[in-house]
């Protein structure tokens, strides 16, 4: 009697355990929060159009108001000696690779600082100047309002690194014509960013989106 009950209960517990593990890891595919947010961007793109920036070149704009069908957004702080330097050079590469699209105004690079206390317009412009002499098509800005309201929808986590700087999940975030976060690429994955951008531009052209 006890054995039969146990087999039934153990089978039930095993099935429940598998179901919970399946849900908690998005079908055994995402074991880290970073992979989870990337999967989330692909499966259920978050709207980010209402987020606004104080632009380093002057003025204030919501992402929805920025020109360009595709926005490539990254999060940096200008005192960063590691990832943000790499991101800067990735953006310089993207500026070359997507030169035509950026010149045509269909793609725009956007760098957002998560250290607005230290990063003013001058610091942001100096950061851009370190990586590219051509400023066209690359916006930099400080989040208006709560910083967290920017970080949460993008799934960006910033923690102090005990050296006066920050540890953060660096990546290139692709925002589509409908101003939803549709993909997140590793910062080394320049080719992937380019492919996703061209795919979105192709789709936008087919849909007759002329933003």
């Amino acid at each position, binding site marked *: 009697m006890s054995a039969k009950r*146990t087999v039934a*209960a153990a089978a039930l*517990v095993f099935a429940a355990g598998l179901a919970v*593990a399946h849900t908690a890891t998005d079908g055994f595919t995402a074991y880290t929060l970073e992979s*989870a947010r990337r999967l989330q961007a692909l499966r259920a793109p978050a709207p980010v159009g209402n987020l606004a920036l104080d632009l380093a070149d002057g003025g204030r704009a919501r992402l929805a108001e920025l020109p360009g069908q595709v926005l490539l957004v990254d999060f940096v702080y200008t005192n960063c000696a590691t990832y943000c330097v790499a991101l800067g050079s990735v953006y310089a590469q993207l500026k070359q690779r997507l030169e035509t699209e950026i010149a045509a105004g269909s793609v725009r690079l956007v760098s957002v600082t998560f250290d607005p206390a230290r990063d003013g317009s001058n610091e942001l412009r100096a950061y851009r100047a370190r990586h590219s002499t051509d400023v066209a098509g690359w916006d930099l800005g400080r989040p208006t309002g709560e910083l967290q309201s920017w970080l949460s929808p993008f799934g960006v*986590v910033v923690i102090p690194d005990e050296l006066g700087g920050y*540890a953060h999940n660096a990546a290139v975030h692709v925002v589509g014509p409908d101003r939803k976060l549709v993909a997140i690429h590793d910062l080394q994955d320049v080719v992937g960013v380019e492919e996703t951008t061209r795919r979105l531009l192709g789709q936008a052209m087919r849909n007759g989106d002329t933003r």
Partner: protein
Amino acid sequence: MATRAETRWLLWAGGAWFVLATPQSRAWLESSMALHMLVQLPLLALIGYCVGRAWLRAQTGSASAQVLGRVQSFNAGGATGLIAASFVMLLWMLPRCLDLARFDAVADVVKFISVPAAGLAIALSWPKLPVIARAVVHLEVIATLFRFGWGYLATDQRLCLAYLADDQQHTGELLIWLGLIYAVAVVWRPMFGTIPRTRSA
């Protein structure tokens, strides 16, 4: 009626749970990956384990002993409890779940309930587990500590967004040390302890 010893254990366990659940101790123990994984999680499991041990000592015929009997009738050989505890402990060791517990209060509440429940399940299941199954469990615990330890050590990436890379390395090292210590502790007696002598006629 609970015995005095039983009540004392329950009070200790409940008190310890509340201390761990205070915002201050949560903030402290979840501030580093090593503390979160190797101090807070084991302490929560230990609390559940103590409750389980106290429950097992419930006086025959008492209400709690009757409930225990009913629960244990679904746990022949300790199988059900051990499966449940394995899932809970494995899941909370994943980087994603550690991060979630740090960032999401609801997830942390789930952790504060499920991990002690896993400890309780282990306490109720262990005495019923056949010796060979105990050996398998020991082996699996050692393997899991090494697996997670090596995983956290070997990767260049920061797996938890809430914790720094150094913290992750440190946790990996500690997990491997823990695996080693656990392995030595488990095999010491059977290998080097006193050999049971055959009774002389």
